């Protein structure tokens, strides 16, 4: 089994949760979530954050009760080996899909903003070796990438000060002029930016004194929520709502405000820095997928990683254009929503019942 050397401290859960949530989404989620709640959408972010907190609590309850403490064994206990393996494979597909979505979205931003003639497959040829290099070794390397992927891009928070000089309070006032239903509807859209924390179901056994690490998971989610709310409020203060519908990546627009004596067009630098925030997403999803396949079928970890990266490459090869990426994003959001809010609670209940029955 896992030795103490493979494990990471409880504090790292903070970074794992945050790193799995924050990514390319920060560039554009503001113009998506205001669909229903408009200028009150920042409240939706808070609602979404709270809902995710509940889900983290549910996940921890399940994991603490389980002997091995990961989704494979939960599945096996709940459904038996065969059906359990089936659901596990679905989970792997979900993770791989998330990884592809993140990669595609980031590649699209680079294409639109920096290199219009960039071949995505050529860019992936550069990136995939890096991902393989990260996930083929111990888990602590992945955690290290997550840690630095939270700490270093956190410096970008200060860039939010610059757009405030053009802030207009009228853009965000009056607060709460949307109904609660609208806010909750928007929060459903906001959830997509919080996704990825479900990898907790895989890396839980890699945490020292894992049952005591729950508070860090909540802190991590709390940090993400605050970050999003801050970004959302700054965006809403700067843009008015009708402008926002035309802008795909509002954050890049905010960065354009920044002018330093040696640097204009800060968004180039921002996109490059955001790479360090995107990488942990992909790395964590693909590591989790690899780990799950390894646990289920027992193939060598490195070989699975290679195969999964191959799949990512081939699938990415066939995705082209804004529509397809949008479709992919929407599908992933839908699947993720179903997974988090329908499947996880269901699994929790089933698991609970199964345990009670087995005890008797």
């Amino acid at each position, binding site marked *: 089994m896992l030795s103490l050397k493979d494990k*990471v*401290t409880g*504090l*790292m859960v903070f970074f794992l949760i945050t790193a799995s949530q924050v990514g390319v989404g920060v560039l554009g989620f503001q113009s998506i979530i205001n669909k229903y709640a408009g200028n009150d959408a920042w409240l939706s972010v808070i609602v979404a954050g709270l809902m995710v907190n509940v889900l983290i609590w549910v996940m921890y309850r399940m994991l603490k009760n389980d002997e091995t403490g990961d989704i494979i064994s939960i599945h096996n206990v709940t459904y038996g080996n065969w059906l359990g393996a089936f659901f596990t494979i679905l989970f792997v597909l979900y993770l791989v899909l998330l990884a592809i979505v993140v990669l595609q979205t980031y590649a699209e931003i*680079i294409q639109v903003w*920096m*290199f219009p003639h960039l071949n995505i497959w050529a*860019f992936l040829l*550069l*990136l995939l070796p*890096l991902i393989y*290099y*990260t996930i083929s*070794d111990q888990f*602590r*390397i992945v*955690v*290290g*990438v997550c*840690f*630095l992927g939270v700490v270093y891009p956190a410096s970008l928070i200060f860039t939010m000060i610059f757009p405030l000089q053009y802030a207009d309070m009228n853009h965000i006032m009056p607060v709460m002029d949307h109904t609660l239903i609208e806010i909750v509807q928007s929060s459903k859209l906001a959830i997509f930016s919080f996704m990825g924390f479900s990898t907790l179901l895989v890396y839980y056994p890699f945490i020292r004194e894992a049952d005591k690490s729950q508070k860090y998971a909540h802190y991590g989610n709390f940090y993400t929520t605050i970050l999003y709310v801050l970004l959302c409020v700054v965006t809403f203060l700067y843009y008015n709502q009708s402008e926002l519908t035309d802008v795909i990546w509002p954050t890049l627009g905010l960065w354009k405000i920044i*002018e*330093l*004596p*040696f*640097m*204009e*067009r800060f968004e*180039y*630098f921002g*996109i*490059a*820095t955001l*790479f*360090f925030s995107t*990488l942990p997403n992909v790395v964590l999803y693909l590591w989790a997928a690899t780990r799950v396949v390894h646990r289920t079928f027992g193939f060598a970890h490195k070989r699975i990683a290679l195969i999964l990266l191959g799949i990512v490459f081939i699938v990415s090869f066939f995705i082209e254009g804004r529509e397809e990426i949008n479709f992919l994003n929407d599908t992933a959001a839908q699947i993720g929503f179903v997974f988090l809010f329908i499947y996880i609670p269901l699994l929790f209940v089933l698991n609970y019942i199964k345990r009670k029955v087995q005890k008797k």
Partner: protein
Amino acid sequence: MTKKASQKKAERDFDRLLKKLKTKDGFMHYQHDHPQGTMHLGYLKTAVDPEKLEKYILPRMQEYIYNDLSELNQFIPFTKTELTNDSSQIQEKLVNGFVFIYMANTRPSFLLIPLPLDEKRQVAIPEIEFSVVGPKEAFVEDIDTNLNLIRKRLTIPELHVRKLKVGTITKTEVAVLSIDGISDEENVNTAIQRIEGVDIDQVIDSSYIQQTIADNKNSPFPQLLDTERPDRIAAVLAEGKIAIVVDGSPHVLIGPTTLIEFFSAFEDYFLNWMTASAFRMIRIVAVFFSILITPMYVAVLTHHFEIVPQALLTTLINSRAQVPFPPIMEAILLEFTIELLREAGARLPTKIGQTIGIVGGIVVGTAAVDAGMTSNVLLILIALAALGSFTTPVYKMGNTIRLIRFPLLLISHVYGMIGLAVAIAFIMVHLLRLTSLGRPFFEPIYPFRPADFKDALIRLPFDKQKKRPFQVRPDKVNRPVGKDHTK
């Protein structure tokens, strides 16, 4: 066999040995008549200290009264003499600086006296890690002198020296030093195990050991720190690290080490903590600058000149107007020139090296700009980057920093800032994967240990350093602290 017959055989054996030895270059042989029979004394001229031989051995052999070699041995004022009948080892002993005395008809028939010629360099001022303040001793090539220099600073019984022999031909003596009760046994065992596993025929310098016991041999980063300062070794031993001393090398290895330790000069500990911290920060900024500035120049000028503000753009364009090359060629040309200068300076004798530096730096640089081969701005940037890489206190790390610039340059040319970000991520992951004697190399940044930052990017005052670095997993975490005089 009768006594006489056995004596005859012994004499025949000795004659054969003598014949063989006489074919050797520099073999010296004296005979001396003694009531018991003829005595023979032999040694290799180049291996033996002639002064000691003439002063202590020959007079005693000729004038003192004794009946056999064991009696003679009592008069000899040297320890580690050997009495033996076995003539098979003689050759090897002679090479190691022994003198043999043979006496026929007695047992034991050989007396071996060690009189090796010690050609040692005097302990001198550290040249590579020179410091204005602080001790001025540096290691030399002799392992015993080096161990003595360390022992002088750590006169405690807990200092544990374990000696090993490495190299199938050179049989170099390697000593692993640690302080019992402070350093983790696991680190010591890892080091010893790896040194024992070294399977090469010659160990000429400690860098042979450094490379062969490295955790990842395919890494440009050195994973053990080397130093020529005994004071530094004493200090890190007290922190719970271990030192590896190799015979024939004036550089002693330290492990487990961290990336940041490579950017701390030992002088940092002799200065006031604020000054020291500031200097250390300057070095770290210099390293980042040195690695990133030319790739950024290439990335920005090739792909994203929109980043440059208008005022600065004018300067850049003016300076680049005459240059016919793309930024990448320009940069590689200049980087290559700098490397050429460095390499030429390193290979030439000091005085000529200085001339080369002036010729290269001023003449070639100015001429290159005048001729329109490169831009002024890039020349400044590259010169600064080169300076930055030379601020690294550890020479080998400085080389690494200069090396990793080149792949970054190429990728910036192809993918601009994004490529640069990916390449930096590559280096980051590589550093995350690296270990030193099995301990994480990127500590205290990751694994994140806030306590170890007291002596990383900055150096806090000594009374704030009450705990030994967590990275080496010391047995005793707390350092003994004296009384606080301010209270």
